């Protein structure tokens, strides 16, 4: 009797579904009576607003059929854009795979490989000019005990 009513109980009372005890409390408790009054007023306002229909608005909406058609068109355009994007990406990837290498690049690489191969496979019997060139490079930095030029004297 002394405890104030919960909001839910108050709501049920406003719909005539409260118990006799709840009604007795409402008559005795000023706080609950005020809460009940506010609830009733709000419910009355809500009911009236919803019965009257939506408020007047500044901007009218497009008819349903037009909105539906617009969405269908937008969806179709999006699908087309995605499909086009995927196709373009796949085409670009395939071009990279099949594109022929440049001849100049191949020639440089082959020449370099030939030089390296010659140096690695050389036994010293028939050094090539290229090998001499390569071997001569560090000459200036070496000690007096021997130099690269002497190393290849037999060639001359």
């Amino acid at each position, binding site marked *: 009797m002394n405890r104030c009513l919960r909001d839910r109980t108050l709501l*049920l009372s406003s719909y005539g579904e409260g118990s006799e005890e709840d009604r007795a409390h409402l008559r005795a408790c000023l706080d609950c009576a005020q809460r009940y009054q506010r609830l009733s007023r709000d419910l009355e*306002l809500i009911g009236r607003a*919803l*019965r009257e*229909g*939506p408020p007047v608005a500044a901007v009218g*909406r497009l008819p349903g059929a037009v909105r539906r058609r617009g969405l269908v068109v937008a969806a179709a355009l999006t699908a087309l854009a995605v499909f086009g994007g995927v196709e373009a990406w796949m085409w670009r990837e395939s071009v990279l795979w099949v594109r022929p290498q440049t001849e100049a690049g191949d020639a440089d690489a082959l020449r370099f490989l030939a030089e390296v191969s010659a140096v690695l496979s050389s036994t010293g019997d028939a050094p090539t000019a290229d090998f001499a060139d390569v071997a001569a490079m560090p000459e200036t930095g070496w000690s007096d005990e021997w130099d690269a030029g002497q190393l290849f004297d037999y060639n001359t």
Partner: protein
Amino acid sequence: MEPLTDGPSRQAEYEALYRKHSARVERLSRLLLEDLQEARDVRQEVFLKLLRTPDRPRPAEWGRWLTRVTINACRDRRRAGWWQWWRRRHQPIDDVEVEDREATPERAALSGEDRERIWRAFRQLPPRQREVFALRHLEEWSTQEVAEALGLSPGTVKRHLFRAVRHLRKGLGGRS
């Protein structure tokens, strides 16, 4: 309530039912669907169904039968156009369709701002809460009747109603 009879009396009876319930059916549909055109379509659909069901077992009360058919028709439409419903649910209040009506003292008493708030809050309610609130508060059905119509328990109806009212009052914005 007796079944609709055949012949001229049936036609008269149908017209009487239409006059009595068509506005209510349209209003309920509009509350549940938020679209005047869709609500009018539902109203037509419901009364067409009423006309075309002569052999079905007659409901005890036509008004409640019409309400149940209306709710089901609204559900079907909402399912069919869920994206449209979702879009409207998140639509700002300013984009709502204009309905021109005469201003009355009563309408003036309820400020435009209040109505906007209430409708904005109502749009945010889940479909079930909206149905429960519309039937219990606006149609003034009893909790038991709402529970039977929606296939819920009375406790669930009360819970939905309480949540709906709490949300709507919150939307009304600290008027207490």
